[in-house]
C-alpha cells in the first residue's frame, strides 16, 4: 500500500495516457475512488485510510484535474460508481463540486446508473439531497451485519439501527435504487446467527422496497488485520461445512424472496442488477479516477498509484494523469483468461461462440475444450440452449476452482 512510485515504461513513469489517449476509446463507465474512512475495517483491503489532516478539499481538487484529463476518452457515460473508502464521508460541499465537475466534463445524457457507496453512519439528509440533486440514482449501503458482536469482530463501528435510517434518508431524498451489503462467515458466527441476521436484513429489504443485495462470505485478504489475526491464532475462521451451509442458506432465502443470483455474491430483483458491476464482468471499458482506482480500456489494465500523496503529486505534475502501478498491456491469452474468470461468475455465463472465436482453435483435443467438457460432465458447468456456458447449480460453490482450471488449461503445456 505504501507504493510510492508507479512503474516506468521506457524510463517514463507510466500513466493511463498509454491506454486512454487514442481516438478509438469510447469508455461508457467511470469509477471514482474516495479513499477516506473514519475507521479502517479489519477485513477491508481496498485502499483507504483515516484522514487526520483533512485533505478532502485537496483530494477533490486533484480529482477535478484528473477527470478533466481523461474526459476525452469517455463516450456517453452509462454508469458511474463512486466507491471507497467511504465516499459518504466526503463533505456535502465537496460532493457538490465533484458532481458539478462530472456534469461539466462528461456527457451524462445517457447515464443509466450512478451509484455511491455509503456507510450507514455517515449518510445525512443533507448529503442524500446533494447526491440526488447531482444525479446520483443509486446507493449501496454497507450494512454487513445486524449483530453488534459480529460487527465488532469486523471492526465495523456503526450502530445496526443506522442502516435503516440511512436507507430512509436516501429514499426520502429520491434515491430509490438502493443496495445493501452483507457479510457472513464471520469468526464466531453460527449458522443460526447468520440466519437471524439474514432474516433481519430481508425484513428491512421488504420494508424499504430494496431490490439489490450483495452477500458474501468473509474473505481473508492478504495484508488485512483480520488475516494477520487469523495467522496469529487470535481468531478462528469458521469451518468449511458451516460456511457452505451459510452460503446455501443465503442463496435459497434470497431466491425465495425473488432476489435472483445474477453473480456469485450479487442478487437483484429482475431489472435491478448493478449495471456498473456488470460492465466489469462483461469486460467493458471503464475509466478510473482517484488513488488505487483500476481501469480497463483498449486491452490495457492499470491501477492508479494507491497512496493519496503520490496520486495527488502525480496528477498535479503530469497534466492530470495519475501514475499507475500493475500496468498490463494488451495480451490476447490474458484477455481470454479474464473473460472466463469474470464471465463464469455471472448467471448469464459466457457466450461459447464468442469464447471460441477468442480462443482460436477449439477442437475436441483443445485443452480448454477438454476442461469444459470435464466440468460439464461432472455437473459443475452447463451449456444452455442459447450456447451460453455457465455454472450449473452444483458449480456455484466451486466457481473459483472451475475458473482456475479453465484458465490453467490455456497456458501452453510442455
Amino acid at each position: 500500500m505504501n507504493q510510492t512510485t508507479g512503474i516506468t515504461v521506457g524510463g517514463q513513469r507510466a500513466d493511463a495516457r498509454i491506454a486512454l489517449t487514442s481516438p478509438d476509446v469510447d469508455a461508457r463507465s467511470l469509477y471514482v475512488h474516495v479513499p477516506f474512512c473514519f475507521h479502517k475495517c479489519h477485513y477491508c483491503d481496498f485502499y483507504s485510510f483515516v484522514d487526520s489532516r483533512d485533505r478532502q478539499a485537496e483530494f477533490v481538487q486533484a480529482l477535478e484535474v484528473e477527470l478533466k484529463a481523461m474526459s476525452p476518452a469517455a463516450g456517453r457515460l452509462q454508469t458511474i460508481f463512486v466507491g471507497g473508502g467511504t465516499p459518504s464521508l466526503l463533505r456535502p460541499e465537496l460532493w457538490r463540486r465533484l458532481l458539478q465537475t462530472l456534469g461539466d466534463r462528461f456527457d451524462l445524457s445517457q447515464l443509466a446508473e450512478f451509484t455511491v457507496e455509503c456507510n450507514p453512519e455517515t449518510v445525512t439528509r443533507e448529503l442524500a439531497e446533494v447526491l440526488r440533486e447531482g444525479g446520483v440514482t443509486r446507493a449501496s449501503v454497507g450494512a454487513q451485519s445486524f449483530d453488534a458482536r459480529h460487527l465488532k469482530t469486523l471492526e465495523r463501528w456503526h450502530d445496526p439501527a443506522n442502516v435503516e435510517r440511512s436507507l430512509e434518508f436516501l429514499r426520502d431524498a429520491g434515491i430509490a435504487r438502493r443496495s445493501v451489503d452483507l457479510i457472513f462467515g464471520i469468526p464466531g458466527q453460527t449458522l443460526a446467527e447468520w440466519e437471524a441476521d439474514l432474516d433481519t436484513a430481508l425484513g428491512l429489504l421488504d420494508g424499504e422496497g430494496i431490490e439489490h443485495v450483495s452477500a458474501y462470505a468473509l474473505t481473508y485478504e492478504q495484508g488485512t488485520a483480520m488475516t494477520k489475526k487469523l495467522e496469529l491464532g487470535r481468531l478462528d475462521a469458521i469451518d468449511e461445512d458451516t460456511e457452505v451451509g451459510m452460503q446455501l442458506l443465503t442463496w435459497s432465502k434470497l431466491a425465495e424472496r425473488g432476489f435472483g443470483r445474477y453473480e456469485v455474491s450479487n442478487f437483484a430483483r429482475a431489472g435491478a442488477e448493478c449495471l456498473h458491476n456488470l460492465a466489469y464482468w462483461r469486460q467493458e471499458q471503464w475509466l478510473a479516477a482517484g488513488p488505487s482506482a483500476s481501469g480497463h480500456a483498449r486491452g490495457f489494465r492499470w491501477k492508479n498509484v494507491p497512496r493519496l500523496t503520490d496520486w495527488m503529486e502525480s496528477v498535479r505534475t503530469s497534466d492530470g494523469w495519475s501514475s499507475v502501478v500493475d500496468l498490463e498491456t494488451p495480451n490476447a491469452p490474458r484477455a481470454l483468461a479474464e473473460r472466463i474468470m469474470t464471465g463464469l461468475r455471472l448467471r448469464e455465463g459466457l457466450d461459447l461462440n464468442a469464447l471460441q472465436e477468442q480462443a482460436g482453435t477449439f477442437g475436441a483435443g483443445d485443452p480448454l475444450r477438454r476442461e469444459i467438457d470435464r466440468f460439464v460432465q461432472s455437473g459443475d458447468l452447463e451449456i444452455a440452449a442459447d450456447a451460453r456456458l455457465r455454472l450449473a447449480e452444483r458449480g456455484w460453490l466451486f466457481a473459483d476452482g472451475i475458473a482456475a482450471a479453465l484458465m490453467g488449461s490455456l497456458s501452453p503445456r510442455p
Partner: protein
Amino acid sequence: MAEIKPILALDPTLGEEGSCPENPVIRNFSIIAHIDHGKSTLSDRLLQSTNAITEREAREQILDSMDLERERGITIKASAVSVRHVHNGKHYLLNFIDTPGHVDFSYEVSRALTACEGAVLVVDSTQGVEAQTVANTYLAVNNNLEIITVINKIDLPAAEPDERAMEVEQVLGFPAEEAIFVSAKSGQGIPELLERICEVLPSPREQQTKRTRALIFDSHYDDYRGVVVYIRMFDGKLSVGDKVRMMGTGRTYTVTELGKYTPKPQKVTTLGPGETGYLIANIKALADVRVGDTITQELEPAEKALPGYEEPRQMVFCDFYPATTEDGKGQNFEDLREAMEKLALNDASFTYHAVHSEALGFGFRCGFLGLLHMDIIQERLEREGGVEVVQTAPNVTYELLKRDKELVEISNPADLPDPSLWLELREPIVRVELMINTDSVGDIMALCLSRRGEFKSQQAVSEMRQFMTWEMPLAEIIYDFYDKLKSITRGYATMDYEIIGFRKENLSKVDILINGEIVEALSFISHRDTADKRGRALLNKLKKQIDRHQFEIPLQAIIGGKIIARESIKGVRKNVTAKCYGGDVSRKRKLLEKQKKGKKKMKSIGSVNIPQEAFMAVLDTSE
C-alpha cells in the same frame, strides 16, 4: 621437496634393484578402509613423509579430486600416485593406488586391487572393524594381496587400539601383534608403516610374456586432455607413440602421453613391467574405456588378456525429469540432456536413455551401479550440470523368463508384460554384511526378516559387536533399509552388500490408479506377500501428498485388475471467493492463477493435480 626425476623403463643394466634412483624397488599397494576410517589422511601423511608433498598440501586431501568426494568423505575416482623413498640405503618407488570406498564400486575396487601386490588395511581405533572393512578385505584377500594392518587415530581419547587389533584378528584372521598403531594426524607410527611397506610387501610379479599387457584400473575425464587412463604394467612396456589396442573393446589408439602422478603429473617416455602410471591417447569419452580391460601393442598383441574383465552392470534404476519451478517455467529437457551427456563423459558406469512419462513428461531413465551411485549422479547433475531434477522412486533390474524361453532384463516396472506372457520373474539377491551392536541383534533380525531376508551367519566380533550376513532381495534394501538400520542401532551399524545372483520369486506388478487412471510412474514390482501392505502404505502417502480437489478422488492399488488396497481423498466443499472485487481484475486473476499452480510443482493426470513429490512416495512405504 626432493627432486623427483622421472624414471625410464626399468633396465637391468642399471645394476641391482634399488641400488640407484633409476632402478628402484617397486611397491604397488592400496589403502583399504571403511568410510571415514582415515584413509585419505593416511595417504596424505605417507606422501608427506616421503617428501612428495608439503605440509600445506597435506592439509588438503589431495588424492580425492572432486568436491563431491570431499564433501561426502568418500572417494569415487581411484588414482595412482608414485613417490620415491629411500629405506636402508635402497631406493624405492611406492605406487599408491587409491580405491573407491563404497560397495557400489566394488568392481572398480577389485580392479584397482588387481593392480597391487599389497594392501594397507586401515581400521579406526575408535570404531573397529566395520562392514566395509570386511568386504574390502575379502576383495584384497581374493586378489592374493599381502596385507598390513593399521590401527588408526590412536591420538583420539576414545581410541582402543589393542581391542581393535584383536577384532581384526578375530574377524579377519590377521595376527593382532602385527598391527601397526598409527596416528595419521600426528604422524605417529608412519615411519614404521613405511618400513613395513618396503620390507613386507612383495615386488611386482615376474613377466609372463614379452608381449605388452597393461591393466586399466581406472580412468577419468579431463576437459583439456580427454580421457586419462590409469594403468598397471604387467608385461612388456609402453612408449609414447605406440599404437595400442584395448583387448576387450577392440579399439585402437596412439599413445600421446605417458606419465605418473607424483602427485603432480610428470611425463615419462616409457612405462615398464611393474610400474603404474597414466596414459593419454586422444580418447574422447570415458565410455570408450573399460576398467579391467587390457592394453596391448597393436603390432605385436598379447595372446590373452589379463583376467577379470567384466562389463559394468547397472542394478538400480530410476527416472530423472527436469523439475518445473514455482513460476511454472521448467528447465527444459534439452538442458537435462546436455547435463547427462556431459556427466556421461565423466562416468561410464551409469546409463541413460530418453523416456516419456504421462505423468512427468520427457526425462531419462538411468541405470546405476547401486544406491550411492544414484545419489552421486543426481547431485552431480544438479551441481555440475546446473539442472534441477525430479527423481522417481528407484527400482532394481529384474530378469524375466518369457514363454518362448527368452530371458530379458526388466528395469522399469511399466515394461513388465502381462503375466500370461511369461514363465517366471527373477529378482536380484544380495549378500548383506552387517556390523551391529550386540543389543540390536533382535531388532535387526526382525528388520531383515521383514525384508524377506534369509539369515546366513553371525559372528561375535567382541562382546559389544556382532557381524552378520544375510541374503536378501536387492529390492528390499533400496528403499529405506539403510535408514532403518541406522535408526535401530542409533547410527552404529555399518552395512555392505554384494549381488550374488537372481532368484525366482512370487513377484507381481502393483499398479496405482488415481481417479481411475493408472499412473505408470507409481507402478512397482513387489513380492506378492508384501504387496498389499506396500500398496496400502503408498496410497496413504499419496493421500497426504495430493491436495483435496472439488471432487472425491479414489485411489486404488491393483494387481492384474484385482484391487488390493483403496483410499480416497475427500472433495473440497467450497471454492469460491465471494467478494466483488471492484474493478481490480488483474489482482483476482493472479490469485486464481496462483490457486491453479499452487506452491508445489504439479503434474496433471486426468483432472487430478499431483505434486511431483508424490512420485517419490513409492520410495518410503514402510509405515
